[in-house]
């Protein structure tokens, strides 16, 4: 009987795939872990950055405030929009090169490829999330905010307790999307020598000159990861929709 995992002399492509996957399982495993690590950490930190930048972009300058506060808010808004524009209008692969070599060569800081890779992912995610967050905030009826303002709640607290929780719910699908994109986009980080999945396939393929088969292996891995995460996100989204009924507080019924 044919044992898939004991192919010694691979000939067909699928045999090569199994052969390579088995022989270099450690390398692929390490690559998968690093890809997940960078994607998860980069995305989460990127979300935080995106929320901060999105809120700054949404902030209105209150004409009645003192000049220093007004200038400070204006400056923040300018920095935020320059940042968002730059990162949305350049390719991530170029950002990776510039940030990595910029920090190493120009700033003379000994940053590791992995740290640089995370930084690039965070900055890139932040720029895209900022727009998403801004859109999410904009989709919440202004009356929600006015209701809180009218009772003396500050714009910041209103954002925190009223607007963001509602906007968050609306942009969960977009956040899931961003994570899946990042999972795949980490592959460009091979250009700064991050040992993620793509790099693993490149190295493995080079050993036997079997690039086609080697990349097929990681294609399967990327596919399985994205497919699984996608299913998880859909499940979470369903759960978040919440229940549609409520319990009457019977202890207060007699006061009707």
């Amino acid at each position, binding site marked *: 009987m044919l044992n898939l995992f004991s192919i010694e002399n691979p000939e067909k492509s699928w045999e090569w795939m199994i052969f390579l996957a088995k022989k270099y399982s450690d390398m692929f495993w390490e690559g998968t872990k690093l890809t997940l690590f960078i994607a998860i950490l980069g995305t989460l930190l990127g979300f935080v950055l995106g929320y901060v930048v999105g809120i700054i972009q949404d902030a209105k300058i209150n004409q009645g405030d003192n000049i220093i506060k007004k200038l400070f808010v204006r400056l923040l808004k300018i920095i935020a929009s320059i940042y968002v524009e730059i990162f949305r209008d350049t390719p991530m692969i170029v950002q990776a090169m510039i940030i990595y070599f910029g920090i190493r060569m120009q700033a003379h800081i000994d940053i590791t490829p992995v740290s640089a890779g995370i930084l690039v992912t965070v900055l890139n995610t932040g720029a895209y999330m900022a727009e998403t967050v801004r859109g999410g905030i904009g989709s919440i009826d202004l009356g929600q905010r006015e209701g*809180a303002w009218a*009772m003396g709640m500050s714009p910041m607290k209103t954002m925190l307790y009223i607007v963001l929780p509602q906007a968050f719910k609306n942009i969960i699908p977009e956040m899931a999307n961003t994570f899946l994109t990042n999972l795949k986009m980490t592959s460009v980080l091979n250009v700064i020598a991050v040992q993620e999945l793509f790099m693993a396939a490149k190295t493995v393929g080079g050993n036997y000159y079997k690039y086609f088969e080697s990349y097929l292996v990681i294609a399967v891995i990327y596919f399985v990861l994205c497919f699984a995460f996608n299913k998880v996100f859909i499940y979470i989204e369903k759960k978040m929709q919440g229940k549609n009924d409520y319990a009457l*507080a019977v202890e207060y019924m007699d006061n009707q």
Partner: protein
Amino acid sequence: MSETIISIQDLSKSFGDHEVLRKIDIDVHVGEIICIVGSSGSGKSTLLRCINKLERQTSGKIMFYGKEIRDAQKEINEYRSKVGMVFQSFNLFNNMTVLENCMLCTRKVLHLPKAEAFDRAITHLKAVGMAPFINAKPAQLSGGQKQRVAIARSLCMNPEVLLFDEPTSALDPEMVGEVLNVMKQLATTGLTMVIVTHEMAFARDVSTRTIFMDRGYVAEDAPPSELFSNPKNPRTREFLSRYLAG
């Protein structure tokens, strides 16, 4: 005349070159129930929004117990916590239950202890007949129920004045009564209220003073007995005849 809470002085407001409020002077005294009536577009909502600082006036000022309220955010927040507002579209927080709606600002703005905020919420929700619904979300309530919750939510702040902007205009006819009854009940407690409304019978019966607004001006400001039975201004007469006929 009792003490003046809010004094609106020479207030004007323009949107671009559209003058919506022109030189408004109104004093609101403790215990008064002022109804503001007038045709659509005469500036009633804008006036109320200026009083609450949701809209920035073009000129003139708003005094609160003799002190001018300037436009610094902190000062505005402090002032707003004492001047409640009930909106035509309720503006309940959609992500919160009825109870959370009523406790959020007492907790986060007034910094009341949880137990006290809870007690206030229950007291006022009981008064408007909404206590059994503390666990419901706004989307699960009818319009009339939402508005009663919104009123209770404002009352939790113990405001000096409560502003109402057409609180029954977004309601189905059969629900108007339940909200007006709550407001009539409130009127008997001595709470100072400024109410923009199209409910003429309510204005006539409940207000202590009725203001007719016309094209951004205060055209007439009189006790309802005078304004409704013997209007001085021809525009008031025209408005009332249109209203009472239609």
